């Protein structure tokens, strides 16, 4: 929901590029492992993602960064995740610590 809402406000071209990038990630491992991304093992997924994050082409790194940012938004944007990591900023500040 958080991700969908964020994407709604982004240009259509960016939404299309994101869809294309996700499809590319899904099919990229076929050349190396003979399986799609969702069917390979966790360590193989990590290798693919590292490859994209460190890619020599800047636009691919940027695409990965954007996708990763959305994933982090979807996770750390939820109150339960914030609570789970022990983040508890309070508008009352120091008073709430007493």
């Amino acid at each position, binding site marked *: 929901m*958080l991700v969908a809402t*964020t994407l709604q*406000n982004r240009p259509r071209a960016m939404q299309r590029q994101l869809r294309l990038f996700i499809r590319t990630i899904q099919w990229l491992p076929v050349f190396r492992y003979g399986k799609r991304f969702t069917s390979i093992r966790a360590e193989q997924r*990590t290798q693919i*993602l590292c490859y994209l*994050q*460190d890619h020599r082409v*800047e*636009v*691919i*790194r*940027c695409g*990965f*960064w*954007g996708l*990763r*940012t959305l*994933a*982090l*938004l979807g*996770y*750390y*944007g939820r109150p339960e*995740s*914030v609570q*789970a*990591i*022990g*983040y*508890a*900023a*309070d*508008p*009352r*500040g*120091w*008073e*709430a*610590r007493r």
Partner: protein
Amino acid sequence: MTRRSYDVVIIGSGAGGGTVAQELSSLCRDGVRIAVLEKGPKLRAEEFTGRELEMAQVLYEDGGGFLNAERTMTLAFGSTYGGSTAVYTGTSLLPPEHVLQRWNVPNCTFADVEQRARKFMTENNVHFLEDKWINENNRLFVEGCRRLGYRAQQFPVNLKGCRGSSLCNLGCPNQAKQGTDRVQLPRAERNGVEVITRCEVVRIGDKTIFARVHAKPQGGKGEPSPWEAGDYQIDAKVIVVCGGAVNSPALLLRSGLEPRLPRLGQGFTCHPAFIMIAEHERAITNFVGHPKSFYLDQFAKSDRFLLETCMYFPFVTAKSMTGFGEEHSRFMRAFPRLQMILVLACDEVDAHNRVTVDGDGRPVVHYRCTPEVMRGLVQGAIVSAKIFFAAGAVRVHLPVAGCATIERTDAERLNLIAEHPDFKPGKISISAAHLQGGCAMGRGPADSVTDGFGRVHGIPWLFVADSSLFPNSLEINPYLTIMALADRVAETIRKDAHALL
């Protein structure tokens, strides 16, 4: 289209617009009609909840995720009553003398700008926080610097009644930060200035503004605009553009002024920055207390970087780290033990870095980190890591290293990394909040957009009063300098009132 008429219209309500509004508001007594058009909403006090995504969405342009054209950097700037002064940490530094001298703008002396900045220091209650309100995130920075022989300095801040929520960047829930939303705008309104929120200026014509007022979204935060939603044509004898370093040049470009002002949009700088994160063995006070109380500027000249203490929120923190998976999660799970430092590069005007508009008139910021900026960020990251370890951190997240986690036992790797950094734009989360330039002051249209008093070259009724006036990077947090320059603009308008109004 509804038609309105004013003597003076100010576009934007941040450090520049809010200041101009206050400084001109005395004219209201003489029957001068003044309006401030603000694109964003005005929130009620109880609507500042401190919840990260909820507040970012309503207070920042693009929810804080405004990307440059290359998509390698996010730009954070406010879009609300008070502009970015509603979402900064209140740090209030006087302009550096060497920068003003280097700008070399006719009729814009350091002494004059400094004197005006000091006026706003008093007016906005700028002072040093008492030692008892400094949290451990800040204390550890000072301690680490001290052990390494660095001179950390305390930020003067414009707070009144700060409770230490740490939520400054999400709009203070206690209204303690004395931005223009708390000081200058309310005073201007009391004197008779009208503030029209949710009013987006489309373009400027000959002494005319074309604007669109947006309805309050259903269930959204903030007060509705005082005007009905719809399109407006607003006649004005004087127009002062204060939309900030992205929106001001974009508005003037949309208004077709580029042919007569070839420097429009040029000279954009922004102090590109990234967040450094370190983990301590024990919990520290970090998400309580003022987040940005100290800085280190001794490397600004030699290595072109500044360090500032900071403490961000879960999503921004997660986004700021490189990597993913267990290594990433381990830092996030340690949130109560995290110390943070912001590394800012002192960038310079570069021909590539500029503001343009796209086919729909939306602002586009072209920005690439120059090799000097990358070097500055790398050196800043290395020095930050040394400060963290000197302060007792057990591991540091170093985004410019191939393997981003550096354990304390492995600290000798830092010098090696400094020589062979892994700095890849697009991989590292770079952000910027000190957006400057685009309508620079100077001598004439060949080198600038305005004169030393913010008057647009060749258009006597059109002024600019915000950070877009900076001819080059200010090298420090910009708000007091913006206010001082806006004060000069307002004074010019007051002096020329007979001719202009």
